[in-house]
C-alpha cells in the first residue's frame, strides 16, 4: 500500500468509522448546516419519524435563501408563501435544540459565508449541508459537500453518512494571475476547458502557485464552483493564511498549535486519479455566454459554438462578440462573490463613477450581516449607493428566482453568482456570470465590459 496520501485520503481515513457489508463506508460527519429552504423539511421529517438529532451542538441553521433583503425585514418574503419556510425552520430548529442564526440575528448571512466567519468549519473536518454550494467551505481545508434532505436527516440522526469512496483529482493553477483576473475567472476557465460534468465522481484539490497566492475569501470563490464542475467537492490544503483567518473565531480553536493541523496536506508524491494543469498567468476575465457554467469564455473573445438551444435562449450567436452586449440588471451577491474583499474590489473600481442609466436595477447584497456592517464601517455602502446600486441586507437574493424580484422575460443580467441556467434568475432571464469587477465595469458601461480597461483608467 502506498503510504503517500492526498489530503482527501487523510480526512477520509480519519473519519471512516466502519465499512458496510456492501463495500461502502460509514463516514463520521463533524458539522451539519441547514437553511430555511430545505431545513424545515429535514427536521420535520425526522421528528415525524421519532428520531432525535444525534449531537445538536454540531448542527447549525440559518435563514438565507428566501429571506427578504429589503430594509426592516421580518418573516415576510417576496416569495408567496415563503414565510412558512422561515417560521417552520425556526420552530423545528428550536424543537431540535440546534443553533439557529435567525432573520435579524447579527450573525445571519449566507450559510457558506457565515460558517467560515464563525469558525464553524475547520480544516480537516467533514461538514455537510443540503445545499450544493457547501463545497465553498473546502477553501478552509475541510471536506465539505452538498447533500439532499434525506442525507441531511441521516447525518443528523446517526452522526455518519454511508458513502462510496470518491476518486481524487488535482487541479493545479501554475503562475501568477494578471491584474483584474480573479478566483472567479479561474473557476470559469476550468469549467470552460473541461465542461460542467468534468469533475464528476471526484474530490478536487485545488493547488499550485496561483491558488496559494489567493486570500482565504478568494479561495472560497474558487471552491464554490466545484459543484458547477459536478465534483463531489473542492478542497484547498490549509496553510498559515487559513490558520490565521480562523484562529479565535467563535467556534474555532484560539490557536492551531496541535501537530494535527500540519498534517492536513497532500504528501509529496501522493497519487491523484486525475490531474489537470492550468496556466493562471494566461487567463483573462471570464464571462458565461450560455446556459451552463461550462458555457464560459474569455471576455474579449468570440462566442464559441454551443448547443443550439443555449444560443437561442441567451439570444447570442456563435462567432459574435460578448463585449458590448447591453445589460438590464447588475447583481453583486451570493456565496460565490459577496464577501468583504469582493465588495472592496468592486467599490474600488466603482468609486466616483455611476451606473449607466440603461441599467434597470443594480443591486449589492452582502454575503452576511457581518460583511454588511464591516462594509458600512469602511463607507463601501456609500460608494455603491452614490453610484446607483441598491444596498441590501444579507441573503441569497437574486442568485435564484423563488418568486421574489422579477424582471421582464428576455432581460439580461450580469451577475457575480454561480449559475446561468435557463430561468435560474426568473422566467426568460438571460444570466451572464462573472467576477464582481466585471459586474461593476458592465454596470457602468450598460453593456458587458472588460474590467481591466476600467482598472487602467482608475490607475491613470
Amino acid at each position, binding site marked *: 500500500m502506498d503510504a503517500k496520501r492526498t489530503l482527501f485520503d487523510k480526512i477520509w481515513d480519519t473519519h471512516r468509522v466502519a465499512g458496510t457489508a456492501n*463495500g*461502502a463506508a460509514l463516514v463520521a460527519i463533524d458539522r451539519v448546516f441547514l437553511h430555511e429552504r430545505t431545513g424545515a423539511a429535514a427536521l420535520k421529517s425526522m421528528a415525524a419519524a421519532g428520531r432525535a438529532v444525534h449531537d445538536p*451542538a454540531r448542527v447549525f441553521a440559518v435563514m438565507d435563501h428566501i429571506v427578504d433583503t429589503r430594509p426592516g425585514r421580518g418573516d415576510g418574503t417576496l416569495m*408567496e408563501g415563503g414565510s412558512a419556510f422561515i417560521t417552520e425552520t425556526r420552530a423545528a430548529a428550536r424543537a431540535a435544540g440546534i443553533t439557529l442564526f435567525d432573520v435579524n440575528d447579527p450573525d445571519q448571512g449566507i450559510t457558506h459565508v457565515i460558517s467560515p466567519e464563525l469558525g464553524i468549519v475547520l480544516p480537516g473536518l467533514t461538514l455537510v449541508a443540503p445545499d450544493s454550494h457547501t463545497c465553498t467551505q473546502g477553501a478552509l481545508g475541510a471536506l465539505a459537500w*452538498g447533500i439532499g434532505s*434525506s442525507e441531511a436527516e441521516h447525518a443528523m440522526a446517526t452522526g455518519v453518512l454511508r458513502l462510496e469512496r470518491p476518486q481524487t483529482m488535482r487541479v493545479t493553477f501554475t503562475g501568477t494571475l494578471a491584474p483584474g483576473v480573479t478566483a472567479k475567472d479561474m473557476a470559469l476557465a476550468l469549467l470552460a476547458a473541461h465542461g460542467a460534468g468534468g469533475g464528476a465522481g471526484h474530490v478536487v484539490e485545488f493547488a499550485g502557485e496561483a491558488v496559494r497566492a489567493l486570500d482565504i475569501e478568494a479561495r472560497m470563490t474558487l471552491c464554490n464552483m466545484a459543484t458547477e464542475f*459536478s465534483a463531489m467537492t473542492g478542497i484547498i490544503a490549509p496553510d498559515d493564511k487559513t490558520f490565521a483567518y480562523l484562529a479565535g473565531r467563535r467556534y474555532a480553536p484560539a490557536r492551531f498549535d496541535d501537530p494535527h493541523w500540519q498534517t492536513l496536506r497532500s504528501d509529496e508524491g501522493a497519487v491523484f486519479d486525475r490531474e489537470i494543469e492550468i496556466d493562471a498567468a494566461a487567463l483573462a476575465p471570464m464571462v458565461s455566454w450560455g446556459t*451552463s457554467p461550462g458555457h464560459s469564455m474569455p471576455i474579449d473573445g468570440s462566442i464559441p459554438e454551443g448547443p443550439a*438551444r443555449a444560443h437561442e435562449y441567451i439570444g447570442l450567436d456563435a462567432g459574435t462578440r460578448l463585449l458590448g452586449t447591453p445589460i438590464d440588471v447588475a447583481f453583486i451577491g451570493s456565496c460565490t462573490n459577496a464577501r468583504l474583499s469582493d465588495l472592496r474590489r468592486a467599490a474600488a473600481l466603482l468609486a466616483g463613477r455611476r451606473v449607466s442609466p440603461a441599467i434597470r436595477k443594480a443591486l449589492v447584497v452582502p454575503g452576511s450581516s457581518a460583511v454588511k456592517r464591516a462594509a458600512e464601517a469602511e463607507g463601501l455602502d456609500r460608494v455603491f449607493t452614490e453610484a446607483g446600486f441598491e444596498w441590501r441586507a444579507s441573503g441569497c437574493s437574486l442568485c435564484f428566482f423563488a418568486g421574489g424580484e422579477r424582471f421582464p422575460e428576455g432581460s439580461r443580467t450580469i451577475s457575480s453568482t454561480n449559475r446561468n*441556467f435557463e430561468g435560474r434568475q426568473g422566467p426568460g432571464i438571460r444570466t451572464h456570470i462573472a467576477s464582481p469587477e466585471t459586474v461593476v465595469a458592465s454596470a457602468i458601461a450598460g453593456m458587458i465590459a472588460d474590467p481591466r480597461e476600467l482598472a487602467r483608467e482608475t490607475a491613470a
Partner: protein
Amino acid sequence: MTPFTTLASRAVPLLRDNVDTDAIIPSREMKTTGRTGLADGLFAPWRYLDVAARTPDPEFPLNKPEAAGGQILLGGANFGCGSSREHAVWALAEYGIRCVIAPSFAPIFRANCIRNGLLPVTLPAEAVAALAWREVTVDLAAQTVTRGDIVHSFEIEPEPREMLLGGLDVIDLTLKSAPAIADWTANDRAARPWVYLETPA
C-alpha cells in the same frame, strides 16, 4: 421506500445535456416545506407554454400521448446538475418516474434518487438515445436494460443496489451500527477535541 426490482415501461426521451434541478423543479414551484405537491411543477418552464395557466406544450416529450404512463425517463450527460434540492427527485417520483437512464449524473441528484427508490442507470449516450420511445425492461438484480433482443448491462455499486432492491430504510440500517459509532466518537473526542462543541444554552 418501495423496493425496485424490475420495471417494464416505455422510455420517454429528454436527451439534453446538463438538465439541471432548477429545470426539473424551479425554486418558485417549491411552495411548501414538505415533500409532496411537486409533480405539477415538474419541468414547469419546459412543460407548459404558459406556466401560470398550466397550458401544456404539446411538443414537450412528457406531454406527448405516447409518453402516457411512461415510468422511465432518458436524459443527457450530467443529468441533475446544479442545486441539491431533493425536490427534483420527489417531483419526478410523484409524477410517476421510477428510473432515469442517462450517460452520466450529477452526484447529489444521483444520491437523492437512490434514497427515494428511483433507479439511476448509466449507459453510453448512443445506447440511451436508441431507447427513445421504446418499450424497455430494467432489471436491477441482473443489472440489465433490455429493448427487444438487445441487452445492455449497467454498473451500480453494491450498496445502492441492495438499498433499492430491498427498499431499505437507510437510517434504520445505519442505526444498527450505533454502538460502533459511539465507540468511534469516544476515541475521536480524545484525538480531536476541537470537533466537539458545547450544547447551546
